[in-house]
């Protein structure tokens, strides 16, 4: 089908603290995904990427609230529905999440097959037990797991890598159109990480997953996983382009600093010395005038602290910097 599978349109979300402060954690994020595409979100802790995940999935549980904007899957908005409809129609079916830390997200008191059945049953796709089990078995085998063994085990009996596969298996049981992977491999060693990413690729290639949002702070991983990369800073995207562009030819100053901090084991690469940037990300509870990165920017111009930088199209991509070169 033509047209984007996943559209996020000027999405804004904020937190209301106990003391009445409003923190605009996501402030105008827009992007779209085609079928088969992986968009990577790069950013450091506090940039808003975790909030973005909840916001994209329509999970507005206080103190998180929707400020504005829209999220559409296959053309239809998923916001503005009550939480019951959201749970039944949207979560798991249209959009699903693979969380960080598989070790904590599986209920240890139930067998894997029961956890998986719950997923199917909670979406009103009630089937008889035998057919259900057969379906689980087929899917788990497709994902390269010894199905009978894994389905009848408790999560604690499985090693970390297998647990992550189970999490992926359950999250994608209903063939979601969009999958958000939030640091899915950060707790795994490199070999397991590779096999988990391989699995995600296979799921995409087989059409079980429509498109994917991959969030991580590990940039080299993003380079090999994502088709396009969006760099997030202080609640907004500062650069959005193809992987090659963002990693090897960054234009926005923060992106440059971020990409410059990567060091390769391959010796002798030019520009290997990371550049230090002082300061810390701004406090989002206070209103900020001008560019959010201006305070720390090595190429700051006088008007940077005055004019709000908009995301403009330049150098074949989107950049949030009037002075980028």
């Amino acid at each position, binding site marked *: 089908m033509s047209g984007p599978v996943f559209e996020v349109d000027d999405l804004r979300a904020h937190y209301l603290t106990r003391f009445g402060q409003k923190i605009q954690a996501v402030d105008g994020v827009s992007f779209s995904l085609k079928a088969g595409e992986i968009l990577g979100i790069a950013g450091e802790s506090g940039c808003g990427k975790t909030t973005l995940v909840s916001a994209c999935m329509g999970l507005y549980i206080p103190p998180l609230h929707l400020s504005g904007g829209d999220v559409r899957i296959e053309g239809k908005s998923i916001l503005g529905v009550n939480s019951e409809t959201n749970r039944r129609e949207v979560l798991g079916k249209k959009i699903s999440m693979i969380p960080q830390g598989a070790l904590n997200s599986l209920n240890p008191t139930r067998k894997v097959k029961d956890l998986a059945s719950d997923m199917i049953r909670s979406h009103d796709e009630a089937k008889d037990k035998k057919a259900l089990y057969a379906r689980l078995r087929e899917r788990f085998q497709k994902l390269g797991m010894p199905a009978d063994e894994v389905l009848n085990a408790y999560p604690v009996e499985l090693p970390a890598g297998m647990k992550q596969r189970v999490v992926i298996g359950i999250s994608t049981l209903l063939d979601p159109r969009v999958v958000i992977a939030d640091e899915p491999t950060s707790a795994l060693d*490199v070999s397991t990480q590779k096999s988990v990413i391989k699995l995600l690729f296979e799921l995409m290639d087989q059409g079980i997953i429509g498109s994917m949002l991959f969030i991580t702070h590990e940039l080299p991983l993003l380079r090999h996983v994502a088709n396009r990369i969006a760099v997030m800073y202080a609640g907004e995207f500062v650069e959005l382009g193809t992987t090659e562009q963002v990693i090897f030819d960054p234009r926005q100053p923060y992106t440059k600093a*971020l990409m410059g901090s990567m060091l390769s*084991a391959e010796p002798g690469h030019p520009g290997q010395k990371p550049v230090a940037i002082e300061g810390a990300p701004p406090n989002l509870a206070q209103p900020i005038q001008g560019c959010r990165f201006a305070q720390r920017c090595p190429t700051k111009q006088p008007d940077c602290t005055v004019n709000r930088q908009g995301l403009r199209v330049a150098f074949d991509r989107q950049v949030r910097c009037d002075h980028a070169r």
Partner: protein
Amino acid sequence: MPGEPKFEAKELSRSYGHGKKRIEAVKNVSFTIADKDIVSVVGQSGCGKTVLAKMLLRLETPTSGSLSFNGKPIASEPDLRRHFRSVQAVFQDPFSAFNQFFTIKSQLRSCFKLFEQKPSAEEVEARVDGALRAVNIEPKEIEGKYPFELSGGQMQRMLLARIFILRPEVLIADEPTSMVDACSRANILDYLMKLKRELEMTIVFITHDIGLACYVSDAIFIMHRGEIIEQGPPDRVTRSPTSPVTKQLLEDIPDIHQPWLRRTAT
């Protein structure tokens, strides 16, 4: 004495528990750390690199094998404080590394507990202030402040300020950049280089980031499941590793300049 190895280990091991529950955190490692070198110990979490670091610090005792410091067995110095005068550390998480109940300055002053003859109050103050300036912090900035009042970057520099105060021969840096944001990482590396240059320090750099290790080190030890599976200069280790485990590890680590995994469709 120049040329004399700082640390020398032979079949060094550290295990916990007994019988079936025995965990061998460090298994029969042997190595030499040369004076004034920067040596990186690279490995995934759980590979034993932190336990190894603690043995060099004498915060853990080996269960078997030998470890010598400056040519003498490491346990031969009965006064631990003397050892800590020569071997110091910076830790990964700057917030959990300090006591949250005391001001940061008083904690910096407490370094002087290691000195047999405590200098006068003025000298203590002068040395603390000097160390703070060495990490680009004005002493007034942190006067009377508690750890939670400072940023992560500032706290990490407090850990380094300690080292400028104590001036040990050896610094064990346990993942000093892992919890620091990408923009500040270069700062930490610069200070480490400064320590090596100006104070001729031997640095043992613990990390999981092999790119970072190659950037700073004279030698790399690659640790996997308690053993050192590869050691040598960074170029040699990454270009022509001898162990198949190392080869596999290097292939599995995503590097922006190396091919890693391809999607069949796109």
